[in-house]
């Protein structure tokens, strides 16, 4: 088995799985009907992308595990998503800001993956990038509107930004998996995406009248699986309930 490729694919699929799950938690509870619908759209796109990433991961692994097996039958320590994405939704502003910080990374990332030397990855990226571009447009507009809106919304967005900032650095960390992917032309080195991300984020924060937090401390361990937040286990307990309670059933 191609271990590093499998690992890389899990990281992609777990990011979209975990974020998609979080976003889906909003369904029926959003501040306005239009936002409820838009959040469901985002979650649907992410679930669709998950099926592609984890489906391919299962094939690469070669043990007959399906995307569902990987999503529903792994425990927390086997998850490879960014820590930022498993954090609870918080308020609507926090949810959209997290989305924006991720989208601003994901769009250039997927664009680079369109040129992957692995044709399957290039194909998944090409399918996903349109959706991600749309997500970025929406999350950026919303972050700007909420940052600029009222005194209360500004304060809430600044607080959300301060809370999320220590998690953004993990997106750009490289390890031996990333190095291998980069050497084989399968995926870009994440560090190379930082400049584009910085530009997108700095501009949006300026428009949103939000202050970019000082400090470059970053929590790490989600994408390597060395460390997760306590929140992930609870998310999985909910998400995996039926598969765990009724093993082997067909749904």
């Amino acid at each position, binding site marked *: 088995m191609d271990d590093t490729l499998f690992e890389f694919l899990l990281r992609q699929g777990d990011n979209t799985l975990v974020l998609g799950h979080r976003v889906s938690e909003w369904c029926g509870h959003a*501040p306005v009907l239009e936002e409820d619908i838009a959040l469901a759209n985002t979650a649907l796109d992410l679930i669709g992308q998950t099926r592609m990433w984890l489906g391919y991961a299962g094939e690469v692994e070669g043990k007959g595990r399906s995307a569902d097996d990987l999503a529903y039958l792994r425990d927390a320590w086997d998850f490879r998503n960014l820590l930022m994405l498993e954090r609870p939704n918080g308020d609507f502003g926090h949810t959209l800001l997290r989305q924006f910080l991720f989208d601003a990374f994901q769009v250039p990332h997927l664009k680079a993956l369109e040129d992957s030397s692995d044709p399957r990855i290039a194909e998944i990226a090409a399918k996903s990038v349109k959706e991600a571009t749309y997500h970025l447009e929406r999350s950026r507009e919303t972050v700007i509107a909420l940052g600029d809106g009222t005194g209360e919304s500004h304060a809430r967005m600044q607080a959300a930004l301060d809370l999320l900032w220590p998690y953004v650095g993990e997106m750009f960390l490289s390890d031996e998996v990333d190095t291998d992917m980069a050497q084989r032309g399968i995926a870009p080195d994440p560090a190379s995406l930082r400049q584009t991300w910085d530009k997108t984020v700095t501009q949006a924060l300026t428009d949103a009248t939000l202050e970019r937090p000082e400090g470059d401390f970053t929590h790490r361990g989600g994408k390597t699986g060395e460390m997760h937040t306590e929140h992930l286990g609870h998310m999985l307990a909910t998400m995996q309930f039926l598969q765990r309670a009724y093993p082997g059933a067909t749904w």
Partner: protein
Amino acid sequence: MYAQMVKSTGQGVKSLDEMDPQERAFQERINRDEKIEPKDWMPAAYRKNLIRQIGQHAHSEIVGQLPEGNWITRAPTLERKAILLAKVQDEAGHGLYLYCAAETLGVSRDELTEDLLSGKMKYSSIFNYPTLTWADMGAVGWLVDGAAIMNQVPLQRTSFGPYARAMVRICKEESFHQRQGYDIMMKMANGSDAQKRMAQDALNRFWYPSLMMFGPSDKDSVHSAQSMAWKIKMNTNDELRQKFVDQTVPQAEYLGLTVPDPDIAWNEEKGGYDFTEPDWSEFFDVIKGNGPCNVERLAARNKAWDEGRWVRDALLAHGEKRRAARVVAAE
């Protein structure tokens, strides 16, 4: 139905001869199956009734997101999660179309929402029942969306243009929902013993509440006549309930499930099934607020609305700042 207890404002149905010329002309248009459009003259009572009916219908779509939303985070596969999420999203879309249709009658979405949240306006009794197992996602799609279609297909011909057009869009999606629900039931009914038990239990709990969706029996339904004359109600409650039972009983048989009514029997003479009426005292309890989930449903909607206020305010404030900036730029 989704608007199952609309109190008519009319005082009995007038004959054409009793109407003044304007009202008579209006009624004659309806009799000719012409559509009434928002700018047309209409009796105040027609407007008021429609606002109540469309508003209740819209509220039902929105509150109806909650029982199924309860299982989105626990859906058993990625595909099921996507299907359920898309379904609940459709219901939000239905709410949106309907609020837009109501707005053409001069009432804002926010006003209607406030009336829902204060408990002044109702929504369908069915959404005050809990969803306890995954089989309930099947039962809700199959029975609740199924009952909704029974009512809404004829409403595509309702006299008020925007309502009729909203129904056309909604009905397409509802029949999709019903098929998806039935598909879940098929999987459960053909699954493990535990899944079969879940499927039967879901049918047991949702059967009578589904029958209640059509509203009280015609003999107790004092407000129907005027609405039918105005063609904002196309069939009586009992007609639709009978149709629903006739459609659903064979579907349950095909699933190998038992309808929880020992007196269900085919009646050759009337060409339909005889069945037991739901317990109407339970129905009126639920309408009054004493269903198993009334408190939770309203609390969830109030929470979303209250906690979303700062977002709505901010989006508005930002929009106004942008407009103001454009005006300055243009000067």
